[in-house]
């Protein structure tokens, strides 16, 4: 399979571990970064990773940040993305089987790498079990939200990056 993957700077080494794991299993991995530990912003990588999936450049996506929450939300806000934030195998199985989830999200500081590997395995292996009821609910999810302006737009977050560079976001 072709797997799109992304993370923030908190868990870069965990993402690198998962990339290697997936490649060793024979998958083709599209690594959307981040690639180092320099402070960055999870929505950039959540959006990028999810769009590879929704635009057909990858089959499924994997996103991780510290808790998995921030990056999974940004991924799910992409039109056509159905992200599942999980900490166990059964939820990943359910999400694929019933909601045809196309992105799996985990917290790199919450879930250990052994369990993450197993969650990814099950997520990739599990088949969506199509029924009219499931199709109906998926359709009802997919029509929500959406935003033409954001789609595949690399400059969508520029205004905030400029504000960041001006030092307007500070602790």
């Amino acid at each position, binding site marked *: 399979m072709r797997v799109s993957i992304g993370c923030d700077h908190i868990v870069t080494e965990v993402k690198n571990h998962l990339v290697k794991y997936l490649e060793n299993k024979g998958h083709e991995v599209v690594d959307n970064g981040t690639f180092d530990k320099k*402070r960055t*912003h*999870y*929505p*950039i990588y959540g*959006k990028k990773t999810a769009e590879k999936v929704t635009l057909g450049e990858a089959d499924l996506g994997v996103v991780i940040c*510290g*808790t*998995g*929450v*921030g990056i*999974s*939300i*940004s991924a*799910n*806000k*992409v*039109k056509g993305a*159905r*992200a*599942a*934030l*999980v*900490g*166990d195998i*059964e*939820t990943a199985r*359910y*999400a694929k089987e*019933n*909601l045809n*989830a196309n992105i799996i999200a985990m*917290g790199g500081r*919450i879930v250990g790498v052994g369990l993450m590997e197993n969650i990814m395995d099950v997520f990739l292996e599990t088949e969506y079990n199509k029924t009219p009821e499931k199709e109906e*609910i998926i359709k*009802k*999810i997919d029509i*929500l*939200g*959406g*935003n033409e302006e*954001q789609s595949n737009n690399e400059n*969508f*977050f520029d205004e*905030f*990056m400029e*504000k*960041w560079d001006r030092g307007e*976001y*500070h*602790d």
Partner: protein
Amino acid sequence: MKIVIGSDLKGFKLKELIKMHLVQLGYEVKDLTPLKGNNYYDATLKVAEYIQANKEDKGIMIDEYGVGPFMIANKLKGIICANLFDEHSARMTRSHNNTNMVTIGSGIVGDRLAEKIVETFAAANYDGGRHQIRVDMLNKMC
């Protein structure tokens, strides 16, 4: 700050437990699905739309896996919703992501753990500061 809560049929029992737990802790809790028989799609929209209209409040949605409600809620503008199964994330996600809604799967998380998760989420505060750029990015998305 008020806590609004909803559930489908499978999450009903845990929702009642959580409601009781939060009320005992002194929170004002508003149940948006007091009767059994809601499906998770409609129940999630009820909670999420309430939070869109009442930005100071926090929302909780319970079904069997937390996954469907997470997908639905996060499609809505201004909703930042976490599917939770641990206390550490419950605190971190409020303080870093300014999460305003959480989902819990009653088939995954046991009652005692679920109580601690919502207790932690209810008590947590947003840190702001550098985290606001990410929240601004999320809120510009759908």
